[in-house]
């Protein structure tokens, strides 16, 4: 089947090249047949790549170790769920996933635009197929997932333990969906620039895809944060790692874009800005993919050093130069149709928000690439850490959250002073009340920065709540419906507006969780023996007993902990560290089961008020003497069998059974004669609100993304004014 896989990749590459040629020919000669053929090449590409990806998945699920990528990223003991996800844990498989998703999303956009954007679509098709060709070149010539081994091993290396987490089923596909979906507005922007069709048409055709990209990338980022919180064993959600930053940068610029295109749609303004934003987003998406794959920056998320850096740099260089050149060449066609009416308008708020988002992206870009910049300038690679990022990003996040509240209150074009009073008094009073309450009731005054942030979040939530309430009242005045019915009807009729407001509320809640859980967090690293206790933020945490679970896949050593407050039981936490057998036989027959890669199972009690989080790091020092003795004895037994020439399956099988029993016995020592283990305990308030905020944000995004009822487009022969009124009433 590997042969079929390789052939499918070559067929896909040929289809993509043909599609580029057909689309360009169709666009230049304005012949629909060729454009349609190019469009169909995208559908065919999606079909061929679906087959190829299916073949790779089948190889993983069958544990077919004749595939090099399966032998190095899976094993027979890997659970089926993780076998399925192992396909994208490899460089080769993830590149195939990237191009497969690109082909699927490209097909979807071409189906949905149908006969619209006829002039732009063939050029956009060529751009999308160009990107697909690039990734197919990588999969065929640099990292082929269908490469085979001359002598397949009996057992595979297994999946990296850190990737054995449910989030990993969805995190990479979501990130790649985000990246590839951002390629769609990028491609249509290029098409619009080349064909000089720079009005709102291409924006409308791809707006939903930009929103989908933003949503998918956002979900991917949040799933990554959840993985970090529950798997990496340090208790945080964001470490300003280069690969994390690489996904955040296109998301930030994408956020700016989905706001500012509304100004272009409504007012025909900011065309240069919008097209620059979308071209930057598409390029940053490729930059993010490059950072994961090139190994130029140190990251726990990267695939390590590879030869893919140069091709990616060429592509990114071409995208940047091409984009800048096109924007300069078309600057005459990109002139704004209107001017900003007032600084107190929705347009002005969006512009300010855009500037902040771009500044945020620039800060992150600078911090991420600082090691390369410093190396180029001083010859020494230096990096900046979380405090540097926090110094600049926190004030910008402050302003963003405040604007998330201010924006919905400000109308398009201009706002009068009277309207300012009407709209802002209640949210400001609520924010003031919150400030007083936090100052006198909570301990938040200990951290003025966090206190100010909580008040800003309160203000934003009050703004959104007021908008929803006013909308409900307006709806009730017309339809006389109960409030819940009016709310549903209001949101249904204005999905984009109220979906957006819900996103703002979710985003504020998410950042509230981040601010509170980091500013008011209590963390302790302690060494405990069974029976010993520690107090963290008023909680008494007792190490009740040690536990060990030797399995074929891994050996888990862990602890059961009792958490109580003022003598009352709060919860029981279970945490463990799983040790996966190493393939390196020099670690010893027994030793390789304890000295390979390891992952943490976090003990977590999540609550609306606070999370109690713990992780164990068992000290294997006391076991090393027994492990060394086991290694010596089994080596002797092996040599004895070899000396006797008794290499029968039965005697080797017996020896392996004895080895497994010895490994289990060594693991049990952790329970029967326990010693001190290292623990990290974290009590963080409102951490759960990070995930609640994320869910609300996704919900709002889905509402905004959901198509509105189709506007009836029948031609009306009545007078034009009446026709406007009639068509408005119908939609």
């Amino acid at each position, binding site marked *: *089947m590997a042969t079929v896989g390789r052939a499918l990749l070559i067929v896909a590459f040929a289809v993509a090249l043909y599609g580029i040629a057909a689309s360009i020919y169709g666009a230049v000669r304005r*012949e*629909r047949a060729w454009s349609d*053929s190019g469009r169909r090449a995208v559908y065919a590409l999606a079909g061929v790549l679906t087959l190829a990806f299916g073949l790779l998945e089948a190889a993983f699920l069958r544990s077919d170790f004749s595939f090099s990528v399966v032998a190095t990223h899976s094993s027979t003991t890997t659970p089926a769920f993780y076998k399925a996800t192992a396909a994208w844990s490899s460089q080769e498989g993830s590149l195939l996933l990237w191009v497969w998703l690109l082909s699927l999303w490209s097909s979807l956009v071409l189906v949905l635009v149908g006969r619209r*954007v006829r002039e732009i679509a063939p050029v956009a098709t060529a751009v999308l197929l160009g990107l697909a060709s690039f990734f197919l070149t990588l999969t065929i010539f640099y990292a082929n997932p269908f490469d085979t081994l001359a002598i397949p091993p009996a057992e595979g290396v297994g999946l990296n333990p850190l990737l054995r987490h449910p989030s990993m089923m969805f995190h990479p596909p979501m990130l790649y969906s985000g990246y590839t979906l951002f390629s769609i507005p990028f491609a249509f922007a290029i098409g619009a620039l080349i064909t000089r069709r720079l009005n709102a*048409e291409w924006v409308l055709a791809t707006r939903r895809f930009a929103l989908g990209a933003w949503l998918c990338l956002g979900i991917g980022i949040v799933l990554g944060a959840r993985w970090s919180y529950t798997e990496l064993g340090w208790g945080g959600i964001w470490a300003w790692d280069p690969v994390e930053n690489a996904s955040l940068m296109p998301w930030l610029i994408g956020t700016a874009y989905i706001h500012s295109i509304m100004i272009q749609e409504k007012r025909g303004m900011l065309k240069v800005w919008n097209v620059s934003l979308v071209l930057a987003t598409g390029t940053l998406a490729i930059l993010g993919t490059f950072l994961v794959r090139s190994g130029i920056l140190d990251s726990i998320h990267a695939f390590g050093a590879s030869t893919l850096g140069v091709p990616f740099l060429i592509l990114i260089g071409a995208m940047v130069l091409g984009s800048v050149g096109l924007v300069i060449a078309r600057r005459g066609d990109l002139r704004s149709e209107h001017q900003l009416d007032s600084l107190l308008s929705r347009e002005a708020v969006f512009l300010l928000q855009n500037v902040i988002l771009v500044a945020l992206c620039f800060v992150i870009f600078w911090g991420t690439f600082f090691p390369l910049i410093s190396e180029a300038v001083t010859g020494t690679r230096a990096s900046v850490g979380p405090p540097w990022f926090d110094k600049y990003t926190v004030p910008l996040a402050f302003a963003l959250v405040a604007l998330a509240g201010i924006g919905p209150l400000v109308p398009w074009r201009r706002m*009068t002073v009277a309207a300012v009073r009407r709209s802002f008094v209640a949210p400001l009073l609520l924010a003031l009340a919150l400030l007083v309450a936090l100052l006198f009731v909570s301990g938040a005054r200990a951290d003025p920065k966090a206190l100010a942030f909580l008040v800003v979040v309160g203000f934003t939530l009050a703004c959104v709540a007021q908008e929803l309430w006013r909308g409900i009242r307006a709806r009730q005045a017309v339809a006389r419906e109960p409030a819940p019915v009016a709310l549903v009807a209001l949101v249904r009729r204005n999905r984009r507006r109220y979906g957006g407001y819900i996103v703002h509320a979710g985003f504020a809640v998410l950042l509230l969780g981040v601010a509170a859980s980091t500013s008011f967090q209590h963390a302790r690293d302690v060494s405990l023996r069974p029976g010993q206790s520690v107090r963290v933020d008023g909680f008494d945490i007792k190490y009740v007993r040690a536990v060990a679970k030797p399995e074929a896949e891994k050996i888990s050593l862990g602890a059961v902990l009792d958490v109580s407050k003022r003598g009352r039981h709060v919860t029981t936490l279970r945490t463990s560290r799983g040790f996966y057998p190493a393939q390196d036989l020099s670690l010893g027959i027994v030793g390789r089961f304890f000295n390979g890669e390891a992952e943490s199972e976090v003990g977590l009690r999540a609550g609306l008020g606070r999370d109690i989080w713990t992780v164990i790091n068992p000290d294997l020092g006391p076991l090393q003497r027994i492990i060394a003795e086991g290694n010596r004895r089994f080596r002797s037994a092996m040599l004895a069998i070899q000396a006797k020439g008794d290499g029968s399956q039965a005697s080797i099988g017996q020896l392996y059974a004895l080895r497994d029993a010895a490994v289990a016995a060594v693991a049990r020592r952790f329970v029967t004669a326990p010693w001190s283990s290292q623990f990290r305990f974290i009590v963080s308030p409102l951490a759960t609100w990070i995930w609640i905020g994320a869910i609300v944000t996704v919900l709002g995004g889905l509402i905004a993304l959901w198509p509105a009822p189709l506007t009836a487009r029948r031609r009306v022969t009545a007078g034009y004014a009446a026709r406007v009124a009639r068509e408005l009433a119908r*939609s």
Partner: protein
Amino acid sequence: MDFLIIVVVLCVVVAIVGAPLRRRGEQEVESPEVGELADLEAAKEAKYREIRDAELDHRTGKLSEEDWRALDRALRGEAVVLLKRLDELRDRAAAVS
């Protein structure tokens, strides 16, 4: 078996991609009016959305009665201009075909 699968895939791909070219007898050439029509349709939809948004802004207290009436009148005027241009273009396209 592998060879057969590859041949079948190739045949299906050629059939899908080549279908529009086999119908080329009609030689459909895109008319320039098509793009302009689409632009105007998009502008009309955006204008309608702007009118609706202004109305909702008024009903939720962000725009005073006076401001909204002036804005609504202006926006509807712009929508009428777009409709007229759309009709002219459609008539022109129909005359050409």
